[in-house]
């Protein structure tokens, strides 16, 4: 049968809806329309998300140089936590080798990746203010004591700075205020500053009991605030027997004498409840 023998066909075209380009247009149009609708929603949700978690801190794009391409992609890829944890483990290993400089470098990256993780700020500060500083003080490679003291003090500052930055990112959590109080008390011998930090910690509903006590203790060492400290310690004392801890009682006793509180107003403190060395 030749081509000519075939009956002529009516000029037939593919129905519109089956043409590939038509389907593509419908799909593309749907995606773009939906895209335009969801864009403001995502933007708002993103802002709310940052507000709830980051308090304004953004994922630092400068991080890319520091943690490398793969790390950065993984961080963006939703594995920020794991990248941070991986770095943290590395820092732990560096600690066993007392590589303080490297540790600090990692701490800055880890806290940049996870600014809302209290533990990272807390432990980074602890490593710097307590461990690195002690190591600097005992550094036998440095013959001059003066320089050792200087380096030790530098580490105190780094530790405090980490805590302050941590607090800036997490103003709604008590723990870093407490740690700040510890550092100010132990390393800077700043009793007034420590009192202030413990006091802030105590204001949080989930703060442990001892925060308010520590605040009062430190206040009692802060020159010019003995009266306030006494009032505070008295208030705590009156909360009940569970607060009658040795340190509280000894500070109370000391302040009663120091402020020359009239005998009639003084609390009678039995000797057996005071700390042994008192």
């Amino acid at each position: 049968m030749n081509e000519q023998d075939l009956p002529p066909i009516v000029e037939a075209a593919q129905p519109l809806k089956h043409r590939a380009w038509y389907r593509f247009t419908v799909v593309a149009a749907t995606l773009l329309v939906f895209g335009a609708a969801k864009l403001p929603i995502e933007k708002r949700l993103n802002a709310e998300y940052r507000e709830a978690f980051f308090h304004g801190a953004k994922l630092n794009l400068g991080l890319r140089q520091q943690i490398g391409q793969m790390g950065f992609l993984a961080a963006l890829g939703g594995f920020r936590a794991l990248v941070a944890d991986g770095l943290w483990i590395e820092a732990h290993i560096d600690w066993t080798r007392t590589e303080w400089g490297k540790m600090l470098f990692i701490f800055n990256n880890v806290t940049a990746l996870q600014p809302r993780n209290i533990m990272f700020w807390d432990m980074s500060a602890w490593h710097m203010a307590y461990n690195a500083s002690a190591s600097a003080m005992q550094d036998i490679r440095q013959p001059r004591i003066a320089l050792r003291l200087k380096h030790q003090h530098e580490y105190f500052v780094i530790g405090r700075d980490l805590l302050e930055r941590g607090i800036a990112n997490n103003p709604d959590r008590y723990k870093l205020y407490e740690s700040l109080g510890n550092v100010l008390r132990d390393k800077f011998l700043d009793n007034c500053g420590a009192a202030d930090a413990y006091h802030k910690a105590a204001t949080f509903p989930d703060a442990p009991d001892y925060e308010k006590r520590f605040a009062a203790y430190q206040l009692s060492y802060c020159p010019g605030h003995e009266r306030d400290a006494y009032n505070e310690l008295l208030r705590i004392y009156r909360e009940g027997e569970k607060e009658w801890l040795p340190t509280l009682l000894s500070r109370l006793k000391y302040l009663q004498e120091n402020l020359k509180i009239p005998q009639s107003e003084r609390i009678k403190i039995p000797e057996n409840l005071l700390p042994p060395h008192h």
Partner: protein
Amino acid sequence: MSAISIQNLTKVFPIPFRRERIVAVRNLSLEVEPGQVYGLLGPNGSGKSTTMKIVLGLVSPSAGSTRIFGRDSKEVESREEVGFLPENPYFYKFLTGEEALHFYGKICGLHGAKLRERTGELLNLVGLKHARDRRLAGYSKGMLQRIGLAQALIQQPRLLVLDEPTAGVDPAGSREIRDLILDFKKQGITVLLCSHLLSQVQEICDRIGILHKGVLVREGRLDELISIENQTEIILEGASPEVLARIHAMLSESGARVLAERKPQTTLERFFLEVTSSSKKN
């Protein structure tokens, strides 16, 4: 009402990125009456599969229409009355025979006791009761075709569309399938059949249509199409040589010509089946 009514069906496939098009089916019109076994024949690329897919609503026509029992193929409803067995299907290999039938039954709206009953019935019908709990992955080609027939029948359709139902199946299985088709015909089910195996088509079809390059070139009742009009075949048994001589004499007087005289042969298929079934008995 026809079981299948195809009116001026044309299907054109555009070739992407080129100006030419492939015309798979050209202005096809045919009717399949209820209760018929209709054979749609043609070489590869003649448009048989495309026509079937359009009838089943899997592909849309470029022009013209197809209807099943009066309902347009484009409507999902039209498929309530159809069962389809595609060419070389694999089915869901992870299912057992019974599970597969349950699945197809459920998507046809059957459930519960009725579904279980129907499944049992069909497994019996196609001779797969013994393999109901075996995964389809372990079925032979013939068994797959049979389970395919069973799923096509699950919702008791009035029309069956079968694409190469006996392709690749051994002679015994092939025989069984053909017998089943003849059974369906007796029950009044319409069958549209596509096959290359012309001798088998010849056995079971009432009407045939031959497609070539998308055009229906011949169509009609099988016996009318292939009977050689002016020839007669008479098969004798127990005829002595004298009787044969007298017949020859009579014929030469009448003006008719003897074209051939030979011992009729059984078909190779019948011979094979006889041998294999008797060796099975032994």
